[in-house]
């Protein structure tokens, strides 16, 4: 049976990157399609009529929307190698908890580090570092959140690493002195091809953020 996999995505999206990494980890061959979000393709609108957002994973014509849902789907549909979620239910629950934490905190607060100024910016920077520090505690002295190999939380969190340079430059702060363990983890992740091939260059992301700031009329 033919396995047709299409990923509707947008190159700087950390959510899209999650699915790219998951597919790469599983060795799945797929067609990557970059969307112009100001001019969404008919396929995107058809496959994700409710949210009209990327990423959308289309497997044999059937869509899977929402990045965490899609990563779990990839893990379950291609369960012959590189499991992303652990097998023990308690550890799976912990992984899901921390993935949910990343979703609740990192994107929105991270956005504030490049989209706000003054007091709001200062508060956002503090909240951002606090959230990263909690993740550092969860990581502990494991090489990856998944233990000896990368797992669900690694896949969910690492895409934001290519946005750190933009956050730091726009927000005028430095993450590594505050979170050395997390940055060491990120660099370790970037050694993996499935991750380094799925993340765009941080300079390109920064230029994209500058363009967004301009469009939003910031500074």
């Amino acid at each position, binding site marked *: 049976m033919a396995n047709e996999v299409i990923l509707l995505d947008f190159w700087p999206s950390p959510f899209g990157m999650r699915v790219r990494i998951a597919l790469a980890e599983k060795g799945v061959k797929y067609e990557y399609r970059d969307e112009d979000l100001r001019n969404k393709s008919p396929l995107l609108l058809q496959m994700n009529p*409710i949210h009209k957002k990327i990423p959308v994973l289309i*497997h044999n014509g*059937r869509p*899977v*929307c*929402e990045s*965490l*849902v*899609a990563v*779990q*789907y990839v893990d*379950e*549909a291609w369960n012959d190698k590189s499991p992303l979620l652990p097998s023990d*239910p*308690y550890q*799976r*629950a*912990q992984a*899901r*908890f921390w993935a*949910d*934490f990343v979703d609740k905190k990192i994107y929105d607060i991270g956005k504030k580090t490049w989209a706000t100024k003054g007091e709001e910016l200062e508060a956002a920077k503090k909240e951002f570092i606090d959230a990263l520090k*909690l993740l550092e505690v969860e990581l502990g002295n494991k090489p990856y959140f998944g233990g000896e190999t990368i797992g669900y939380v690694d896949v969910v969190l690492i895409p934001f690493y290519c946005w750190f340079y933009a956050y730091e430059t726009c927000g005028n702060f430095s993450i590594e002195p505050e979170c050395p363990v997390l940055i060491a983890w990120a660099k370790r992740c970037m050694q993996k091809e499935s991750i380094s091939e799925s993340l765009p260059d941080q300079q390109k992301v920064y230029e994209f953020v500058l363009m967004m700031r301009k469009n939003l009329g910031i500074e």
Partner: protein
Amino acid sequence: MAEEEVKVFRTWSSPFPLRVIWALKLKGVEFDTVYEDLSNKSPLLLQYNPVHKKVPVLLHNGKPICESLVILEYVDERWKQFPLLPQDPHERAKARFWAKFGDDKVLQTMRMDVLLKQGKEQEEAIVSTIENLKYLEEELKGKKFFGGETIGLVDIALGWLAYHFNVVEEIIGVKLIEQQKFPLLVAWMQEFSNIPTIQDSWPPRDKLFDRYASFRKAALGEHTPK
């Protein structure tokens, strides 16, 4: 076989811990309940959920699990009877999608913007909620429950629509889930509520009304029109 110790930290009113209660009851799992007063959180709650400091927390043999949807998947994996999620990966993905949709797009809007705001902000929230309810109505086509013939994860996640939602409607004096517009959703609400486990677990309605009414009053200050 070792004794299983299962405890649920909950409040009497919140729909989130109620999901966990339903799941455990449907699966016939024995458990203890710890009622929390969120204005005076117990040291145990803060110890078991230091990150969010919220209910529900499920404590299983001394190990805590937090976040209601995470707990539901854990419960489903630990106790296999009365499965909440289907086996097929694509069907599982759909269930997860709808559970998230309910929380992000309907529940959030109802308890925050519809209940706690007024004027244009509230109107826009009502319009948005109705738009999103239409998607749920559509999803019920040809099905008795979101889970199919029997209830599943999505029914449990959306269960608050069958009870708490109406309390908000009554307080704001606006009916969003009208029979004509949402015949399938109304039918589902009745079927869902008719399940004995569900029926037996609802919080007292008058107390819930008072609680939500006080939230609205507090949010709007002195100038509550109703």
